[in-house]
């Protein structure tokens, strides 16, 4: 029982790495697409909608397989310098997770942008504040504050999503648990221990978000 801990812990590190890097890229992608979504131009708008519709409407596993197995099929990509990135399962997983969480984040931020009271923007306009400053100083901070609770759920969903990395040969927490199961034939020990570690991470994320909400969020 004790002997399986070191391998599971090394898996946990990989899981956290995957989570943090995909959340980082996901926020950037989500912010860009949220801004595109509230753009008035119908073509830009439709493009951003299509992106989020595709990534929210298909399973993460399909997206992962499309990037890991599918992209290698394109001759053009195989000959370009992208191949160095795409041939690594680790980077494929990060690309897939970032694009997936980016789609959800863009939806969360979009709804936050749209629920900002018109009065704030009008007040800024009548005070002669430029559009750029209105966006950075008024709209963006309010949107981020409002979307904190929903974003916390998204981080937890993504943590669970990173377990899929194990099917493309990455030895994350799930992968290590699978290995332990295969080596020892003790499925309950392996998977329940991994489950407890996942629960523990979920618990920590939940509390971090709660803390941030208390500090920066709106008091209700």
């Amino acid at each position, binding site marked *: 029982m004790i002997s399986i801990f070191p391998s599971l812990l090394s898996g946990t590190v990989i899981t956290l790495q995957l989570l943090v890097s995909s959340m980082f890229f996901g926020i950037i992608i989500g912010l860009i697409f949220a801004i595109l979504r509230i753009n008035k131009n119908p073509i830009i708008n439709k493009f951003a909608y299509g992106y989020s519709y595709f990534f929210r409407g298909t399973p993460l596993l399909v997206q992962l397989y499309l990037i890991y*197995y599918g992209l290698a099929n394109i001759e053009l990509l195989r000959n370009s310098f992208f191949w160095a990135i795409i041939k690594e399962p680790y980077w494929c997983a990060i690309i897939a997770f970032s694009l997936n969480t980016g789609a959800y984040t863009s939806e969360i931020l979009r709804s936050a942008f749209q629920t900002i009271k018109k009065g704030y923007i009008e007040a800024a306009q009548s005070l002669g504040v430029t559009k750029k400053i209105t966006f950075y100083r008024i709209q963006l901070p309010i949107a981020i504050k409002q979307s904190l609770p929903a974003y916390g759920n998204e981080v937890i969903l993504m943590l669970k999503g990173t377990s899929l990395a194990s099917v493309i040969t990455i030895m994350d927490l799930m992968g290590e648990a699978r290995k332990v199961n295969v080596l020892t034939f003790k*499925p309950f020990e392996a998977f329940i221990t991994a489950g407890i570690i996942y629960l523990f991470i979920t618990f920590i994320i939940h509390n971090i978000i709660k803390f941030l909400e208390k500090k920066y969020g709106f008091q209700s």
Partner: protein
Amino acid sequence: MELLLFGDTGWGDELFLATLMTIAVSIAAMAIGFLFALIFTPLKLSKNKSLNIIGNCYTTFIRGVPELLVIYLLFFGGTGAAMYVASIFGYDGYIEINAFITGALAIGIISGAYSTEVFRGAILSIDKGQFEASKVLGIKKNIQFYKIILPQMLRLSIPNLSNVWQITLKDTSLISVTGLVEIMRQSYIAAGSTRDPLFFYSVAAILYLMLTFLSMKLINKLEIKYSKGY
């Protein structure tokens, strides 16, 4: 395109059957989830502390661990557990549990946790006066539940249940790791034997998009139908 033809040379008929399998697993999982939700919602709402803890444990554990973990646990652990139970009754052979049943059960347990939360929210949002009024009128507890609470609870939970359905539908793709031939597994097989993963996984993505799109349309109709009087 000829890869999608029906018959011996194309993969059209296989993918069609796989789509039906995905739908079947999703519906079975959703139904199992309903059963779990109907058991655990009263526990979560009960005034008894220990029953409460059982209900909370279920939803917290299942929503806090990856779906894949639940599937593996049932898939690898279920066989062992079944063989252990059988050995008590004197049967020592190898037992293999059907992949469909394990898959539907695993996804059902997961969707049950989400449905429990949905039902709980719906019951809490029913006006307290309704409970009191029916009590004053002398309506029995079980009739109160079936005729007053349940219909309102179902109507209130349709929008959120549609989210649960979407999650369940997408989660079924994970059963492919246990070997059940649904959309994902069939695309994997097809991609492996034709060496064209890009094409087949794109087809899989389109199939899933079609399923989510059609089910959204259907659920919207249901929602309009059941909120007519409001």
